[in-house]
């Protein structure tokens, strides 16, 4: 018995609504993030149309914040695009995971689901896809989580843009971006090697502040990834890797 058994004979709309319901609790975190992005996008100097358009063109919260900050810092466009790419690299993991769960889908579905494949949509759907009943309609569940997140993200972005022009700049609201990232990061750390990745990336980001074009973001991210991965391999090899 799994908690997904109720979907055994489910049709499209039952799967879709299952996905919507699974996503709703995650919107509690997404809505304030979207508001903060909308407000800070304007403060970084992006025009309102760009702040709103980016939420559907890029559709990735952390990378959109980084884009706005780099644009405000007059960083050359190719470096902005490259940094966005690095920040969103993690989605390849979700792509590989979903690919093995939804192998038989037609191309048009794969395109739609790839576009909607974000952290929150994946997290809310992966349990149902991997351990629920393997019905031919099960991709509608992921569509439901993705679409719900997409709508929530668009609405909160527009809300932030509307709010942004009315908020004074000296409220330390820029700090709420760091707070959002802390809220995402702190509960997700499971392993010693991930903590090491955090410490190395954070320290590198501070030490490399002198680099032009905010290249310290990419450098620190790569240093943190390498450190976490090397430590993990090393601890495994030493046989101490119970929870490395």
């Amino acid at each position, binding site marked *: 018995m799994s908690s997904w058994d109720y979907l055994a004979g489910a049709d499209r709309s039952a799967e879709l609504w299952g996905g919507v319901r699974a996503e709703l609790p995650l919107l509690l975190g997404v809505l304030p993030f979207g508001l903060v992005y909308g407000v800070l996008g304007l403060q970084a100097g992006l025009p309102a149309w760009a702040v709103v358009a980016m939420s559907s063109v890029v559709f990735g919260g952390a990378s959109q914040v980084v884009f706005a900050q780099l644009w405000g810092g007059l960083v050359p466009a190719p470096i902005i695009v490259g940094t966005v*790419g690095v920040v969103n*690299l993690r989605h390849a993991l979700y792509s590989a995971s979903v690919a093995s769960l939804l192998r038989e889908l037609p191309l048009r579905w794969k395109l739609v689901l*790839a*576009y909607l494949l974000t952290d929150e949509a994946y997290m809310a759907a992966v349990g149902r896809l991997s351990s629920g009943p393997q019905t031919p309609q099960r991709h509608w569940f992921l569509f439901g989580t993705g679409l719900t997140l997409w709508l929530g993200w668009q609405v909160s972005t527009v809300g932030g843009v509307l709010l942004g022009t009315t908020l004074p700049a000296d409220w330390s609201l820029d700090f709420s971006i760091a*707070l959002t990232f802390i*809220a*995402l990061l702190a509960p997700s750390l499971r392993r010693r090697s991930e903590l090491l990745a955090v410490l190395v990336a954070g320290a590198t980001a501070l030490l490399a502040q002198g680099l032009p074009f905010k290249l310290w973001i990419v450098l620190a991210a790569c240093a943190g990834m390498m450190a976490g991965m090397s430590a993990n391999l090393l601890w495994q090899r030493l046989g101490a890797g119970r929870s490395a």
Partner: protein
Amino acid sequence: MKDSLILGLSMLAGGVLTFATRAVFLLGGERFSLGPHFRALLAYVPPAVLAALIAPEIFVRGGELVLGPDNPRLWAAAVAVVVALLTRSVLATIALGLLAVWGIQMLNA
């Protein structure tokens, strides 16, 4: 005008790159597979990227490193970590973190 064009193109390029990252294995199917080392490396992207973005927001003010205990954001970040671990709520973490930074700034003023 030229700025808007560059902005639009940059967003488009960022969007295409992001979409490609999300689509590569879904569309590539059996032709690409993720090696175990690459998969392990990608698992460290979120903690490394987030930490790289958080650290300067806390420790760099006006281009200067502020590592000492008189930095209000350091204490507010500590509050935020505790709130995040206890509640797992983004909303509560933002709210209490901001309250902490405002409170400490008022005490210092």
